[in-house]
Each structure stands twice: as structure tokens, then as C-alpha cells.
């Protein structure tokens, strides 16, 4: 199987502190992969490099056969790699619906593919909000959302580009059991229903086992184990 996303020899240091040392990994099309590791093992740095927020000191990242090592975050989103943040950064002055419309407006090609919507049409935004359980909060300013709703909004924003790969950084942390259950169902639906691959970063081994086919274990900047579930 050709890899959808592959990273080879990813190395990163902050000053004199090495954070990642020669990481090599791959995610196949539609494959659910987990990334587990203790605090400070380099998970978020790796996610930042894979999503285009950081440049590696060495190594290459390829997606769909193209090298994307130096491609920025926004360009990777338009290619079909969507990421969520461990700590969401909501738009304080925008409503929930507007936040989703920003993500829909950023990629006219994909938006048209998703039903011929134009910039000011609200159909796709309403659909995403209904799907992520945010429809009734669509007029609420993002700054007033609870932690659970913020995670749902992160998910809605990520799904707006109809991604081929989702990179989810600790999206299940600090959630109620109900929110965790809903987000788990959403992630399964995206993966099984739409064939979206994901790389899920989590501290929760049972959750990773229930959602992922393969789990990578990161310790001190190296992948030390790979488990097939």
C-alpha cells in the first residue's frame, strides 16, 4: 500500500536541546494511526512538523507522493491535511457558524466539490455544524464556547476541507464522557464513512486501542515501538 503521508529522518532541535531524532513514519490512505508517548517526548513537535507549522532541521515529509516538507500550514490544509490544536485558539469576534465558513471559504475547489456552494452560502456550514452537534450554538461567539464545544468546533473546522488526513493533537483531553463519546463517533464516521485517515495523538491507551489500527510509541524523540491492534 502506498503511504498517504510519509516522514523520513525527521530531526528537530530547539537550541541545543534535541527534540526529535530521525523519526520515520507513514500513514496509509484511510488508515487510523495513534501516536502515544509521555509528556515531553516530542509528540506536538512532530505534529507541528507534519502539519507545516514547524520546519524540521533534517528529513522530508511527503503527502500523496509529493514532497511537502517546506509547505506551510495553510497550503497543507488545502491539499487535504487538516489538524486540530491541543489548546484551541478560537476567533473571539466570530460566531461558530462564521468560524466554519472561514474554513469553507479558504478552499473554493473543495467547496464546489462538496455541493457547489459559493462563499456566502450557508448549506455546507450548516451541515458541518449539524454533524458536529453545534447547530444550536451556531450564533454563539466562539469565545463563549465550553471546552467540549471548542473541540467540536476544531473538528468541524478540520472536516471543512474534506480532508484526506486528520492530525488530531490531544483532541480528547479534558472532555466530559459525553463529549468524548460524541467525538469518538464522529471520528469513526469520518474514518469508516468517508475513508479519512487520521493520526491521533493521545495519552489514553484504551482510547487509542479502540480507534486505531496501529499505534506508534514516541519516547525521547524516537519511535521506540509500533503496535498493530
Amino acid at each position, binding site marked *: 500500500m502506498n503511504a498517504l503521508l510519509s516522514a523520513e529522518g525527521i530531526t528537530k532541535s530547539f537550541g541545543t536541546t534535541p527534540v526529535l531524532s530521525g523519526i520515520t513514519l507513514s500513514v496509509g490512505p484511510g488508515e487510523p494511526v495513534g501516536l502515544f508517548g509521555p509528556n515531553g517526548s516530542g509528540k506536538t513537535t512532530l505534529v507541528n512538523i507534519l*502539519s507545516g*507549522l514547524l520546519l524540521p532541521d533534517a528529513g522530508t515529509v511527503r503527502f500523496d507522493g509529493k514532497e511537502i516538507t517546506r509547505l*506551510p*500550514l*495553510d*497550503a497543507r*490544509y*488545502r491539499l487535504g491535511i*487538516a*489538524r486540530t*490544536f491541543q489548546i*484551541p*485558539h*478560537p*476567533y*473571539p*469576534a*466570530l460566531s461558530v457558524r*462564521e*468560524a466554519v*465558513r*472561514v*474554513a469553507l*471559504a*479558504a*478552499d473554493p475547489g473543495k467547496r464546489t466539490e*462538496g*455541493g457547489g456552494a459559493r*462563499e*456566502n452560502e450557508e*448549506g455546507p456550514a*450548516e*451541515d458541518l*455544524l*449539524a*454533524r458536529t452537534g453545534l*447547530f*444550536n450554538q451556531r*450564533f454563539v461567539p*466562539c469565545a463563549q464556547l465550553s471546552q467540549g464545544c471548542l473541540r467540536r468546533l476544531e473538528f468541524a*473546522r478540520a472536516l*471543512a*476541507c*474534506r480532508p484526506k488526513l486528520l492530525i488530531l493533537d490531544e483532541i480528547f483531553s479534558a472532555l466530559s464522557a459525553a463529549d468524548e463519546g460524541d467525538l469518538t463517533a464522529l471520528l469513526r*464516521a469520518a474514518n469508516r*464513512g*468517508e*475513508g479519512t485517515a487520521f493520526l491521533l495523538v493521545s495519552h489514553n491507551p484504551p482510547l487509542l486501542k479502540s480507534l486505531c489500527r496501529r499505534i506508534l510509541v514516541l519516547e525521547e524523540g524516537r519511535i521506540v515501538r509500533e503496535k498493530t491492534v
Partner: protein
Amino acid sequence: MRNAAAFRGGWLAAGIGLLLLFPLSSPDAFFLDVFTTGFLLAAFAASWDVVGGVSGQTTLGHALPFGAAAYACALLTSLAGWPLPLAVAAAIVLAAVAGAGIGALSAPLAGPFVALLTLALGEIAHEAAVGNTFFTGPGGYAWGGEGGIPVALPWRDASPFSSYYAALAFLCLASYGMLRFSRSGAGLILRAVAGSPITAQASGVPIARYKRLAFAVGSAFAGAAGAGFALHVGRATATDLSLELSFQAATFAAVGGCGTIVGPVVAALVLHVLFQGLSLPPSSRVLLYALTLLVTLRFFPGGVVGTARDLASRLGGKEGARPPRRRGRNRNGEGTP
């Protein structure tokens, strides 16, 4: 929501109606001039709001496109002999290009660094204009420096009434254009960039391109106001590039409500007409502007319009509705469960 729009529309119509009728009350030519300048400054303040409010790029050098357009108008008509409409169009294009350039320079920066960069660029332009008598006009008169450069106008003495109505028409058209821009898809994306650049970028927004767009559009409107101001006073002077002018625009926006477009227009009109109408000396006006800004920032951080909106949203809720039936499809075109 419809009632609120009708309410706002009613206030707007009443305001424009009063301004249309004001010259019929046979006011002093001085007051007509104060209002005419006020209309141009109001459009300038709204253009600051496109950059600093809607897009969150706090600029302290917004007089640069205003003054550059005024100087372009003066130079192109007086020195190159261009027809006035062509010179005005070129001046607006020049302002937009200057804005895009400032946007490109400030794109990698954030917050106070954008303010410092724009302040520095504005001051360079101001000092260049103040310190140089760079052209010699007819009869050997030095052009430039404090005296500025005259605009070759195709009319001799414009009537204060025609200037008043022309400036009012310009303000209405420019405000409508800026309002439409701020409420467009691009405006929504700019508000997102202002609120959280990292989330906007993670949503596929090329933020450097949108920052350039914000500066270019805001500067084009500032340039139009600057060209209008040069036509009104008959010359471009170094004051058109001054820090005081940039500060005034930012103050009007903060007092009226950043990001609202209408707020800065109203604040500029009210404050300018009040302070200028009282014939206060310039130093006192600067002090009063600063004082008004301090009071607003301390007690009404959302400005007049922002505070009014907060009050309105606290008083009235938004109704819910049934979510639509899901129409999601996978990449193979199949419906999802």
C-alpha cells in the same frame, strides 16, 4: 433581527437626511467647510478601520497613503499637467500599491511590531515631505516643504455648497464600499486573521496574502480621501502625512468602535465638527482627542457601536432552528450514515 436592521437603517436615513438638509439652513461658510473636511476625515477614519479594526493590523502610519495620494494629485496635475480625473485615479492606485507594499513588509510581523513598522514608514514619508523643497514651480517658487504643492484645479472658486455635497456623496459611497468589503467573504476571513492567525492558517487561509489585501483596500480608500482633501484645500502639504493625522484616524476608530466601519465615521464626524467648530487651537484639539481616547479605552473598550451592540445582544437572544438533514457524501459520492 429584521427589526434591528430596520432600526439601524432608520437612524442612518435620518442622519443622512439631516446632513442633506443642513446647508439649506443657510449656515456660515466656515461650518460648511468644517463639515466638508469632517466627511473626508470620516472616510479616512473608516479606511483605518478596514486595516486596524476589521483586519486587526494596528497601523500608526495610515496618513502615508492619504498623503501620498494628495501629493500624487498635486504633482500629476501641477507638474505633469494630467487631467484631474486621471490624476485622482492614479493617486488612488498609487495609494493602494503603497498599501500592498506596507502589507507585504508587515505580513511576517504581529501586534506592536506592525504598529512600529507603519509608524516608521509614515514618519519617513512625513520627514521627506517636510524637509525638501523638491520642485520649482512656475515663476521660480519652491514647491514642497511646509508650503506643500498646489493642485491644478479646473475650477476657480468652488462653492462651499458643492464641496459639501460632493464630500458627503463621497463619504456615503466610500462607507458603503468599505462596509460591503468588511461583510464580504474576504472581510470574514480578515476578521478571522485578526482574531486568531494560527487558527485561520490552520483553516487554509494564506494570511500574508490577506494582510496585503487589507492594507491595499484600506489604503485605496485612504488615498481616495486624501485626493479629495487635496482637491478641497487646493494643495498637498506635509500635514497630510503627519503622525497626528494617523493618530486621529486611530482615535476615531477606537471611539466609534473598531471593526464596525460605521462607528469611526460617526465618531470622526461628531468629534471633528465639535472640536473644529469650537475653533480650538490645534494643541488643545490634540489634547481633547487624547482625552477622549483615554476615556473610551477605560470605560467603553468596544467604542460607541461596540458598546451599543453588546447592550443589544444582552437584551435580545437569537432563536434556534431545526438542524438541516445531513447531505454529507464521501469521496465516492455515496451518502454517509
